[in-house]
């Protein structure tokens, strides 16, 4: 699975039956501070992605 991070970098991660939430946590990203999209559609963080998915991480900016 490919993870597109807020800084535009892309990393390859193995899903191994994990949810996006677990994958983000393993990368040191707090899932509560982000929104997740797949094919331009927002999905909940407990979604279990496919190995060929591209998941985009949108950072929630604070304030405002």
């Amino acid at each position, binding site marked *: 699975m490919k993870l597109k991070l807020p800084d535009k970098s892309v990393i390859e991660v193995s899903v191994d039956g994990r949810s996006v939430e677990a994958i983000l946590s393993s990368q040191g990203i*707090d*899932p*509560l*501070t982000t*929104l997740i999209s797949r094919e331009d*559609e*927002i*999905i*909940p*963080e*407990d*979604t*279990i*992605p*496919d190995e060929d998915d591209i998941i985009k991480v*949108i*950072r*929630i*900016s*604070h*304030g*405002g």
Partner: protein
Amino acid sequence: MADKKIHCEKCERPAVYLDREREIHLCSDHLKESVENEVRRYLKTKRLPKTLGVAFSGGKDSTALLKVLSEIRSELPSSIIALTVDEGIEGYRQDTIRAATETCLTLRIPHEIIRFQDLYGHSLDHLVSGSERNACTICGILRRRALEVLVQKHKITMIATGHNQDDHAQTTVMNAISGDVRKIFTGYGPSSWYAQRIKPFARVSEKEVTLYALISGLFRDLPECPYAVSSLRGEVRTLLYQYEQTHPGAMRNAARCEEEIRERLGEIYQQEAYKTCSICGWPGSGTICQVCMVLGKDVRFQNFMKDEK
């Protein structure tokens, strides 16, 4: 490929949001409905005036609030006006002010902007340079006053702010950490100078607010304020998110904590009378108000206010 989409608890459409506390999923329509209903519920507890001011920075929270209010405006007894303060923060505020202007045009809501530069003679960048005080403290004090100047200009008696549940939880913990018991157990009585503040998103999480703005097509990936990076709030925020992940509902409980204490204190909860600032004449906590203490010898603001009166 198997369909691994998670569906809405209420309608079977693809879910966009996991409510961790209630352990349910919601689609975009039902999340939108949930947020709007929460704002309706909150506003029913308030006596709304003829004109409701909305403190509108152009960021996601106040943008979402303005959108909710525009969606339900036919149900409200009030007309809405968006009030924006341009603090003058280079590399940050230009984008958010532009976004604020565009949003108001889209939603057809009247919009008024006031600038630190015009009111105080300097931008925030100038005022914090060389100051030992925290930039967020200085900005908060001056922004509140700037907003009140707009409030007086438009004879507004109530302002809605975009503060969400996460903000409330953070403030509660910050007050506890700083041992600021006075902030929790005392307050000030009503003043004809200041508009009443209401917080329609008090029971709506930051994630719900952000999703609402995104679903409404009004979310913009705007930069964060450069001064917010090193604040105590940032540290408390990180701490609370860790708790929320392992103990869903922790954020809501923290947000409600201070409010419940005040409710239970009833009449014991003290409301002090404002003192009059000997320099600018505005009501404040001391004989010299916080604004005049921040501005020091700069008299431009005082002259401005004398001209206005």
